[in-house]
């Protein structure tokens, strides 16, 4: 499993597709729009063009691909929406406020979350050391369930204009759980 990176600075993926800044998206309609746009902006169409046209087309293709990468992944999409509201949850060690909100206090992951993650990571390490795959699988299932529940909440909060702080907390938790899942998957090659 590959985790999508944070949105690039300066890119509003919603604007690239000409859609409203909402979490709920019509994924199928957007996918066909992406394909249509990707064909138009693809560098293959400009191979024999002058260098400047090639460069411009490539920039657009890069933006488009980047925007689609974010839009199609619910977690990246939620992180992008929050970034547009002035909170970057993708930094190491907690969320930071950016742009107009830069003066605000940083948002830290709760002690409860950090404790829980530490316990889970230890549990995975212990189970693995003991060759106990059943327990590892059970933790992975729990992690998937937690991510789904957190994201359902994030989806509602984002589109109802809920306060940024709890959303940021949820998204940071999602990042921790996903990292644990990646760790579990990575060990099995």
């Amino acid at each position, binding site marked *: 499993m*590959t*985790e*999508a*990176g944070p949105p*690039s*600075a*300066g890119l*509003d993926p919603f*604007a*690239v*597709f*000409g*859609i409203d800044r909402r979490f709920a998206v019509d994924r199928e309609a957007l996918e*066909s*729009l992406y*394909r*249509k*746009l*990707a*064909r*138009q*902006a*693809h*560098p*293959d*169409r*400009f*191979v*024999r*063009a*002058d*260098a*400047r*046209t090639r460069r*411009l*087309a*490539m920039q*657009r*293709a*890069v933006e488009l*691909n*980047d925007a*689609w*990468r974010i839009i199609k992944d619910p977690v990246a999409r939620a992180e992008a929406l929050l970034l547009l509201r002035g909170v970057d949850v993708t930094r190491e060690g907690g969320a930071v406020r950016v742009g107009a909100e830069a003066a605000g206090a940083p948002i830290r992951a709760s002690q409860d979350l950090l404790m829980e993650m530490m316990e889970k990571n230890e549990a995975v390490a212990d189970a693995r050391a003991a060759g106990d795959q059943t327990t590892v699988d059970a933790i992975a299932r729990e992690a998937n369930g937690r991510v789904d529940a957190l994201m359902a909440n994030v989806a509602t909060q984002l589109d109802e204009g809920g306060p940024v702080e709890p959303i940021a907390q949820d998204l940071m938790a999602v990042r921790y759980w996903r990292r644990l899942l990646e760790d579990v998957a990575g060990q099995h*090659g």
Partner: protein
Amino acid sequence: MVEALFQISEPGESQAKAACKIRAAGIDLGTTNSLIAVVEAGQPMCLSDDVGKVLLPSAVHYSQGGEVVVGGEAKHRLAVAHPRDTILSVKRFMGRGGKDTASTQSLTPYRFVNEPGQEGTVRFQVPGKVVTPIEVSAEILSALRLRAEEQLGGPLEGVVITVPAYFDDAQRQATRDAGRLAGLEVMRLINEPTAAALAYGLDKKLDGTFAVFDLGGGTFDISVLRLEAGVFEVKSTGGDSALGGDDFDRAIAEFLLAKIGISSEKYADPELSRKILHAARVAKEALSSAETFELAFNHGDVNWKGELTRQQMETIVAPVLQRCELPVKNALRDADLKVGALDGVVLVGGATRMPLVRRFVAQLFEQEPLTDLDPEQVVALGAAVQAELLAGGDNPNDVVLLDVVPLSLGLEMMGGLVEKLIHRNTTIPCGAKQEFTTYADNQTGFDLHVVQGEREMVNESRSLARFKLTGIPPGPAGMARLEVTFMVDADGILSVAAREQNTGKEATIQVKPSYGLTDEEVERMLLESYEHGAEDVRNRLLAEQRIEAERIIAATKAALLSTPELLESGEAEAIDLAIRSLENDAAGVSSDAIRKGIETLDRTSKDFAQRRMNRALSQGIAGRTLVHVEEKLSG
């Protein structure tokens, strides 16, 4: 035809204009064999040599007299007589340094040159000179170019070269350099499995999700592709860049040596190793159709006769073939697919002719693979289709390829950790920006180390390049704001830029690739190669600059005519002036002056071009949202 070089001015507009068509070809630059194909009357076809052979063995012999022989003669005769001076399977060394290939080196008879400061590239000692894998590959490409030009009756103006999906940045760069060295304009590098799917997709008009199982002479690639509404999307790729039919040969050869009773130390004898590998290959190929094969092996005082059965051979190579299973499973997992969800499996590569391989694939994918096209030609055929498309020929299906980054790209952080900027399987072209800062007080420079791979630690990743950024004003730790931009173009080649944000000034960065050749080295090789004198190179540079000048002039004039409403006041006059000045330069003989003229026109018309591009691309976003998007883009 220089005057025919018009580019499309509107994206989405049909490229198909017979007058614009140039001579283009697709090249499969393979480990064992190479092929060249063109599209004739809408049908892709491979070009054969004088005696009707389509496959050009990827073998290059350097004679004592300075002569270069490429192909079957080199492989079958000269490789036996002069194993040290006849380079086979050079693709294994492309974009690779001595350390990367130490284990492969020990299995070959070549004399490697390892000089300090040149560890980034493998170098072979051949009579009278030292050559790099890039130069050896360029000889193969030149031979194919010659074949095509004789048959097409004119110079080849553009090619598409295929590379394994697993090829990293360095290997792709090396392949591009080889094309350039062979005097070819490489329009695009495409992944071999993508080319194979392209050949099948156009012929069969299939829509769906496919796996391409490519077991060639030297590499194994597995790709999962989705074909839908004219778009090929690579969902995931995987494989093993050191696994192929050659490994089957080696396994069989080792078995034969044991059977004959020759100790494995003698295997280092180049003539013996070549002979036994040849015998193994012949037996393997014969056993694809026959059940048993009679072998005779004569070397020195050894005169051996024996029999090898298909079953014996299958038992010998099965463990090697088994190595394909894990990459297949990983690729399916990366694409989020179950085996049953695949609509087809395409076979590529000579090794897939073996009944054992076909059974293995059928079992692994739970379905019979597609075998309609010749597995050895299918990649070249697909490359020809793509070349034709890029060259502006007919393109009724309007196919574009969406390829992905095969391996994650990142930077070394404090403590040897890798920070990934671009994750594997991201659609290309793509880019990423990230901000970094200083970790020590009064730090005035950054050492940036660009790496590739999936591991967390830098020492487990592949080093791509090192950058230095200096001249940062001293201050407390964490003050400087370094913005690093990664950009991967449509060929999968990475460029990296770094800028310090606080000072605002453009800090200079120096790129020192830790692999492959520098631009200067390529230039030097061009100068040194026997067919181009210094005069030729100057003429070529001049011709290249003239073509570029004509392209930009034609594009700008067409733009002025088609969208005058996007011009701002005074802009038309300034652009016009720059065009006339460049036309003057292009009539002269100074490539430098032309280059400067191009830069001036580029600068003058940059904003106008940007406005046009914005408008053209936002037309894809329908109705109500169009206005919204245009506001965003112009704001």
